[in-house]
């Protein structure tokens, strides 16, 4: 299908290496096996640290997702601004593996990156994952919702207003 071929051919030079790798992994995986790959991301999503599991109110819900998911962005040394390091935590139930998979991708691709990198991620990232044939557009929009919340929280943490 054209959408996925386009994704494979697309110029991903605006993505950090960690995400380029994930985008390429999906593009190079046979369509039938992509769900399996997404499932691996779902299984690898780390548990939220206890300080959040004890205080779920500190986590922000992502209503764009069809399943309950919460995300929180931490920034170490926010005074470093763009150079500050971003840490991500997600909480999503096991009966929502697709949502967990998306969270797993964002975790793998963005956790430990600088605020500058996190804020530079283009909003069409979900469409570049070669999943338009296997996952409904609504679900992909849920992933965009997670990304935009991570970016907004990052901006807030480093005191940068981006107009979001």
């Amino acid at each position, binding site marked *: 299908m054209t959408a996925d071929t386009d994704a494979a051919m697309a110029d991903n030079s605006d993505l950090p290496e960690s995400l380029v790798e994930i985008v390429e992994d999906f593009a190079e995986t046979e369509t039938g096996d992509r*769900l*399996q790959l*997404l*499932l691996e991301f*779902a299984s690898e999503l780390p548990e939220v640290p206890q300080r959040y599991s004890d205080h779920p109110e500190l986590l922000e819900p992502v*209503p*764009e*997702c*069809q*399943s*309950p998911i919460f995300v929180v962005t931490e920034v170490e040394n926010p005074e470093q601004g763009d150079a500050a390091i971003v840490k991500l935590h997600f909480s999503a139930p*096991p*009966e*929502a*593996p*697709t*949502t967990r*998979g998306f969270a797993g991708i964002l975790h793998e691709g963005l956790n430990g990156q600088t605020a500058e990198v996190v804020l530079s991620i283009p909003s069409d990232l979900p469409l570049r994952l070669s999943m338009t*044939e*296997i*996952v*409904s557009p*609504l*679900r992909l*929009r*849920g992933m965009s*919702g997670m990304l935009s919340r991570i970016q907004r929280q990052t901006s807030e943490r480093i005191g940068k207003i981006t107009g979001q």
Partner: protein
Amino acid sequence: MSTAIPADTTAKFADYADGSRLVSTEWVAEHAGEPGLVIVESDEDVLLYETGHIPGAVKVDWHTELNDTVTRDYVDGEGFAALMSAKGISREDTIVFYGDKSNWWAAYALWVFSLFGHEDVRLMDGGRSKWQAEERELSTEKPRREPTEYPVIDRDDSTLRAFLLEVRDSLGKRPLIDVRSPEEYSGERTHMPAYPEEGALRGGHIPTAASVPWAKAANEDGTFKSAEELKAIYTDEAGLGTADEVIAYCRIGERSSHTWFVLQHLLGYTSVRNYDGSWTEWGNVVGVPIVTGSEAGEVPSR
């Protein structure tokens, strides 16, 4: 119904109009693997089956397999035959559907299979969550079923399915059931609470439609309510009475499949149709009448 696979004789089912359309988790555990019986999982979450499913169950995905990839419609007869063949399902097989969210998507798949006249289709009462709550076996092994020669059957769009014009012509003549949330019915919102916006320009409901959110038909554990409770909800409160024909709708036709199953098979209404265009169609069409607020509203004069 095919006689090869016996009906579930659970007492609760005997009170429904056609209780043979339901099987219990116990029944499935006992009969899974018998020749002539295929267990089909159909979920909203496209990955759930991969995390573990009833041993031997095959997956049917509503988004990628039952929908046409270009037109807003279901697959045609050839597409359905090819799908059934690939899944290893024969025309004579008994199919038991189950899935997440109180069988919401399983009922949707069952309804689409019914458009092709696949005769013996049943639902597992309580769906996936009940099976899991009972700590029954799950497997990640994908069954390898031999491809079948499934005949090409034209989809029957006239019996179980309603289209926009028929719905418009039905106003005041046939009861309509709106199965969405009260907020969607009143027009406060155009999508489900906690679900993303799916693109309807106007909020509200089709004039005269009674509001019966689909989940009213289900117990906490996802099983269907008893025949008596269902009768009180639909026949009495929603005022369906002894209507010959009923049309149900929701947002894209999935939640209303659940209600369709209740009205058609559990309560035995003679002609129940699902308007799958639902609110994402009606709420975008120029010039069709819409009522906002919690009252059903009157038939428009023109």
